[in-house]
């Protein structure tokens, strides 16, 4: 081996290594190995929710920069954002920590702000919006609960006093004593089912026992809020229904105040027993839901898709949301 050719080869080899290392770091850092280009913004939060160095900054779902550093400041945490050159962020744009995947990777979403307004400059602070908090959700659920209580109280009142032919409860009592043994069997079947659920078997069980899903549900808090609004309108509907029931109108009214129906319920209770047997045996849709976990996985897939859809929705506004949901789901 000639000495100079050896030297040349070693030199080339080493340079190759350097180049590869450079390329690796360069592509990992999104092209900012030595000096981050673009400009820097500061975002202050009460809680970063696991946002970390290297996470993306997205505007309308498009990457416009990266989190360069996270640090503790007095009374808050700050994320230093490197924004790509040429990306203009209006001063009234709002940043918030968002989840990009169900498994917990985060990004910092930035809203459009007012186009044409004053722009943020290097080193300035961007407005932030706290991410929805667990405690907030719980307090919302609390008010919802008290309202429900109110409604149920009204329902109870109407049932307890009853009209002609005894109160609702005495009628139900009769229904129960007539069908006593059959119901006991159904209940023991139901106990079996709940035990399975507790042990985390089947989709329902997973749904209840899987902590990951719990987190995912948290992410859907905004939907819950919508649901709460729906619930409120449902309440007012319920009040109307209760009045109807009292006056013997509608199915429930007929069910409770009509003797002919009572006999048919006996037959139905027998069917119910058969049904619960079937459920326990994993037959039928509900049975599958309880005994088999494929549905759970399907459900997870759907949730992921839904999440993606919501993601798109958050950034692109409600008009296209329907299209996005449809696109993501199918």
């Amino acid at each position, binding site marked *: 081996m000639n000495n100079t050719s050896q030297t040349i080869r070693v030199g080339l080899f080493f340079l190759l*290594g350097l180049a590869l290392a450079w390329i*690796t770091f360069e592509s990992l850092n999104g092209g900012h190995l030595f000096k981050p280009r673009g400009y820097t913004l500061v975002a202050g939060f009460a809680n970063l929710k696991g946002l970390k160095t290297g996470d993306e900054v997205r505007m309308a779902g498009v990457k416009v920069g990266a989190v360069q550093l996270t640090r503790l400041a007095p009374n808050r945490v700050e994320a230093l954002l490197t924004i790509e050159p040429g990306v203009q962020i209006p001063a009234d744009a709002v940043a918030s920590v968002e989840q990009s995947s169900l498994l917990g990777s985060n990004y910092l979403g930035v809203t459009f702000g007012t186009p044409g307004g004053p722009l943020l400059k290097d080193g300035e602070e961007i407005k932030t919006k706290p991410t929805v908090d667990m405690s907030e959700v719980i307090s919302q659920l609390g008010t919802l609960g008290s309202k429900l209580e109110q409604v149920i109280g009204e329902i109870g009142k109407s049932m307890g006093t009853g009209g002609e032919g005894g109160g609702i409860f005495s009628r139900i009592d009769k229904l129960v004593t007539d069908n006593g043994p059959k119901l006991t069997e159904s209940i023991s079947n139901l106990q079996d089912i709940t035990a399975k659920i507790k042990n985390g078997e089947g989709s329902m069980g997973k749904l209840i026992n899987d902590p990951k899903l719990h987190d995912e549900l948290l992410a859907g808090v905004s939907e819950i809020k919508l649901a709460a609004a729906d619930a409120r309108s449902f309440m007012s509907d319920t009040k109307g229904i209760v009045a109807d029931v009292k006056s013997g109108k509608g199915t429930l009214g007929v069910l409770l105040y009509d003797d002919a129906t009572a006999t048919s319920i006996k037959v139905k209770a027998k069917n119910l027993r058969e049904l619960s047997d079937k459920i326990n045996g994993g037959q039928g849709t509900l049975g599958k839901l309880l005994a088999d976990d494929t549905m759970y996985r399907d459900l997870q*897939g759907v949730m992921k898709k839904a999440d993606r859809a919501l993601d798109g929705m958050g950034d692109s506004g409600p008009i296209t949301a329907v299209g996005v949901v449809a696109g993501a789901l199918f």
Partner: protein
Amino acid sequence: MNHLTAIFGHIGGTLLLLVSSVKFIGTLPRQRARFIEQCYLIGYTSLPIVTILSFFIGSVLALQSGYSMENFGAKQFIGTLVGLTMARELGPVMVAILIAGRVGSAVTAELASMKVYQEIDALTTMNIPPERMLVLPRLAAILVMMPVLAIIANLCGWYGGALVCQYTHSISVDSESYFIALKTYMKPKDIIDGLVKAEVFGFVIILVCCYIGLNTRGGPREIGASVTKAVVASLILILVLDYFVTKALLFA
């Protein structure tokens, strides 16, 4: 008891060899030619095997994880898994094992035969410390070459994984999402940790192989025995050190 003292003796001897070699660090510029020769032997000539091996390690990793991650619908994270595993663990460890087998054995064999055929004695009487002429250039060369080999191993492993993901029918994750997954969870620190590990392994391998070679006694048969001993010691040290270095790097 005797074994125990012998082990302590070897540890002490290895450390002394390290100290007496590093003592001559100032002579390195003069030993440029020797250093380059060792770089050539250690680094350049290991390139093909490192490339091939790490390519296939990455491929197999992708294949296996594709098979097992399918079960819980996490196929899109194959890139992350292959990337991090190669960079943090398999890249450095496989390169180290290759170096132990390919270079460590050669170093021990060469020094052991020099010892057996009295070349080391000749150097000593010529007042040329073997540590300066034989050990130091090798240590310096491995420190320079190991990161290069490890980076190449990483990239080959990643591309191996990407190819398998794309072209294996049961996996079919396209290489774009593979690399996105890889990049999303990979921090520069992961790569650097891997390089530090490779550096530590390489250095220890060469040091131990030099020590065992220089302490060979007897005839040609002992050369073979020393090589065996050196390779076994290197492999054990790689895996033991792997644990401790990883732990130190993770919680540093």
